[in-house]
């Protein structure tokens, strides 16, 4: 009986998500549908994790993140924004991969914290704001009486959409991390700039 109820809930959520992407303008459809698809995928993975009590397990969380989130992120562009205006220097030093890994580590930690507290809250995909180069798609996650607003900045890259920045409740990932390493950005050491992103880079 319980199993049956869960399946019905999945179905309803999936339908809701599909319905919310029902009639977009032609140029919007891509970004919004893409994020909607990600949301469904992620929510399904989370529901499964929740039902199996696996959301406290870091390995399982990392698996969800690796499968449902990170492949859709543009690490190069996100890193460029975070390490602005020293990205060119990082490339010149041949450390762009190292820098991207640091950014991904930070993102992974953030998602771990967020996903660990997932408790079956519904996601709803709202309108998108589009420009010729990118779109911003908003997802609302309702937790109790509070609604969390997740804005994903996506742009078409190599025939697919990729997330290159995000904002949660108005806190912008790239801006915040860029602000956090402002002191290091004005220093000489590229390694110091990269390691400043992560509290304990070596543990990641």
């Amino acid at each position, binding site marked *: 009986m319980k199993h049956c109820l869960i399946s019905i809930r999945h179905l309803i959520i999936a339908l809701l998500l599909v319905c919310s992407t029902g009639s977009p303008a032609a140029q919007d459809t891509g970004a919004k549908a893409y994020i909607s698809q990600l949301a469904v995928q992620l929510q399904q993975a989370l529901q499964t994790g929740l039902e199996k009590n696996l959301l406290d397990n870091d390995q399982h969380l990392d698996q969800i993140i690796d499968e449902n989130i990170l492949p859709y992120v543009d690490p190069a562009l996100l890193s460029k924004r975070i390490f602005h205006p020293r990205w060119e220097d990082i490339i010149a030093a041949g450390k762009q991969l190292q820098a991207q890994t640091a950014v991904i580590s930070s993102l992974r930690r953030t998602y771990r914290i967020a996903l660990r507290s997932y408790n079956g809250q519904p996601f709803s995909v709202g309108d998108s704001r589009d420009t010729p180069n*990118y779109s911003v798609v908003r997802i609302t996650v309702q937790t109790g009486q509070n609604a969390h607003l997740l804005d994903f900045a996506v742009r078409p890259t190599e025939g697919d959409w990729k997330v290159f920045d995000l904002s949660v409740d108005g806190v912008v990932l790239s801006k915040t991390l860029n602000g956090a390493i402002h002191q290091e950005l004005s220093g000489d050491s590229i390694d110091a700039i990269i390691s400043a992103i992560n509290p304990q880079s070596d543990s990641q």
Partner: protein
Amino acid sequence: MNSRTYTAFAFLLRHPWLILSGLTTLLIFLLFQLPRLTLDASADSLVLEGDKALELYREMGKRYQSKSYLVVTYTPNESLFSPDVLKRLAQLRDELKTIPDVDSVITILDVPLLYSPPVSLGNLSRDIRYLHEDETSTDLARQEFRHSPLYKQLLTSPDERTTVLQINLERDDRFFQLLEARDQLRSKRLQHRLIPMETQQLAEAEHAFRSYSIQANERQRELVTQIRKVLDRHRDHATIFLGGVPMIAVDMISFIESDLITFGSAIILFIIALMALIFRRLRWMILPLLTCVVTCLIMLGFIAFADWQLTVISSNFTALLLIITLAITIHLVVRYREYYRAQPGFSQRQLVLSTLAFMAKPCLFTAITTMMAFVSLVVSDIRPVIDFGWMMSIGVGVALIMAFTLLPACLLMIPKGKSEIRGKTKPLTHYFARITDRYGITILVVSGFLLIASIIGIMRLKVENRFIDYFHETTEIYQGMLVIDQDLGGTIPLDILLRAPEAASLATKSTDNDPFDDDPFGNPVDNPFAESGTQSTNYWFTRSGLEQINKVQTYLESLDETGKVLSLNSLYQVFKDITGEELDDFQLALLRKNLPADVQPLLIDPYLSADGKETRITVRVMETSKGLQRDELLRQVQTFLINEMGYQPDQVSQTGMLVLYNNMLQSLFGSQISTLGAVFVAITLMFSLLFRSVFLALIAVAPNLLAAGVVLGVMGWANIPLDMMTITIAAITVGIGVDDTIHYIHRFRNEFPKDRNYRATMYRCHNSIGKAMFYTSVIIIAGFAILALSNFTPTIYFGLLTGLAMFSALMGALLLLPQLIISFKPLGPEQ
């Protein structure tokens, strides 16, 4: 005898009833002012006037919306976490909440529990539990109170027997408005001269603030009474102590009142007993007593009329004034009796006028020197000490006027009485003359030894003391402080303010304005979050900021004198604990953004300024720590912040009651030196003028210098610290001590020409004025000794040390002074 003085007094006392009527009218008018007399023991009255740290402290209070609070320590007879006790605790909390002026009451029942069980950061609002909720696990909550970085040693004692209730009081905005208005004008006055309109405004602001403070103090007193009433209803099942600055202020006022009444009355009884013993005449009991009491009432009425407030320091005012008035009166009585004995045929009027004419000059000079001694206290920077100096100076003036008007007017209204001739037994002072005569060199050697010992003692003087030692062990202040210090993380707050470096502040600002406006993709419009203006991060609420705070907090916690340390780091540690992750700035920003509405004002607002550029670390220092050296502790912390943490001096400020109190204590050395220096210079000048000889003036000053040195030396040797009250002793000693010297030398100069024999003159002086000196000194010493019965330790020290000082001054006047006169022959060669 000066015939002009005699004539002047004859004119003045032509109609004694007129003087008595005038004084009665004045007394009645001032008696009506007495109900306006108020006492002030607020924290402000214990700190240094014009102290920059005080300004910063008030600014900080405004910036962080700090509220005044009281604490209640609650040790139930049963287990603290038993359902019954928690129910009673809730009941106590609710009863306290109903009291007017109480804003909120924080108990273990009301603080957000973050580990019981650990909350998930995505659902803080949902997961946070409170002990008052039925579904909350008491065991988990116990663990949390014992181990949480936030609550450990804050709300429950390590043995879980005691908890604390924090009663937050409504912030009195009107009080702070009036204070600010007054302080603005005061600081303007310091910078440049005020125009007449501003002077008027300042006077009005001073008056408005003082009037409001009196009301506020009264309300505070009522509040503490109400709280105590509530607590009394719960004492049957728990041991409860009330603590906190407002309660200490209220209790100190009670001590002052008690001291004023108890010691005033005790000294009056003592005067009656002593006068009866010495003079054995009813008139000599009643008239001096009447003079003393009227003087005190007139002065108290005047203080009330002038809107002055008595403070902890001036709590001895009545005792001191009674004693000084008595001293003047005794000199007059003794001289009167001498005249009566020498001229039994004189009429009452002749006796009285002769006495006044003879004693006018020495009494005037003794009064002036005493007044100067008290005025010297004005050079200290401590407001209660300054006020005390002025009050006593005026009081001595009033005492002189009363002794030369009320006493003779009363005497003139009664008949001469029986002969004052007594037995031919030698007075005790005669033996002092014999000792000086026989052991003059020994006296000089002993004095020299005392001088050296005093200097060494003075070098050992310290200002560090324990505030708790001001109170008797049986007082609630003492017991409450002890429990809070030992079990609940310390009592005296120290606030450390750290400001972001200027460059970092700019960086944050620049980040707020979006650094990507110029080039995310080479095109300014290609920035998806350009309009996202608000940046929830800032210098301190970032990983690097929090790590810095963590380092500072860890250091502060490692110090022996510190108890509970609270800062943003406490919340940071909780975040790290419950996420199990190291956090970066993005996560921190998200966490902060999603904190429930009731957590932010509790865990962030007290430690982070609204602009995010300043963070505050509050440290509770253990006042009961035997090794507490405030100045050293503050210096140590400052050194760590500058040298180890690398902050610029302008980035770091320390404030809080610990700093303010320390500043006041540290100023005591300087104040002591300047007040003593001022009084000695003034008295030497006065003596030079009076005796028309600098040499004689220096001889006269020497015994008093030694008396002041002895009392300070004894304090040094006995490890009695200088404090606001003991700092006044040296000046008082000199002020009152020189009276004996003036009377003695005045008499000596009168007697010496009779035979130009120093030793014979000494015997005559010791047998006449020596007696008056002896009586007055014995009365003063015994009178001050009564203060040793006070509940307030500084009053005890004050009584005993002033008694010792008077004893030293008497010995100096009866032994050293005559020996110096005999040795140096300042009045010329003998015949």
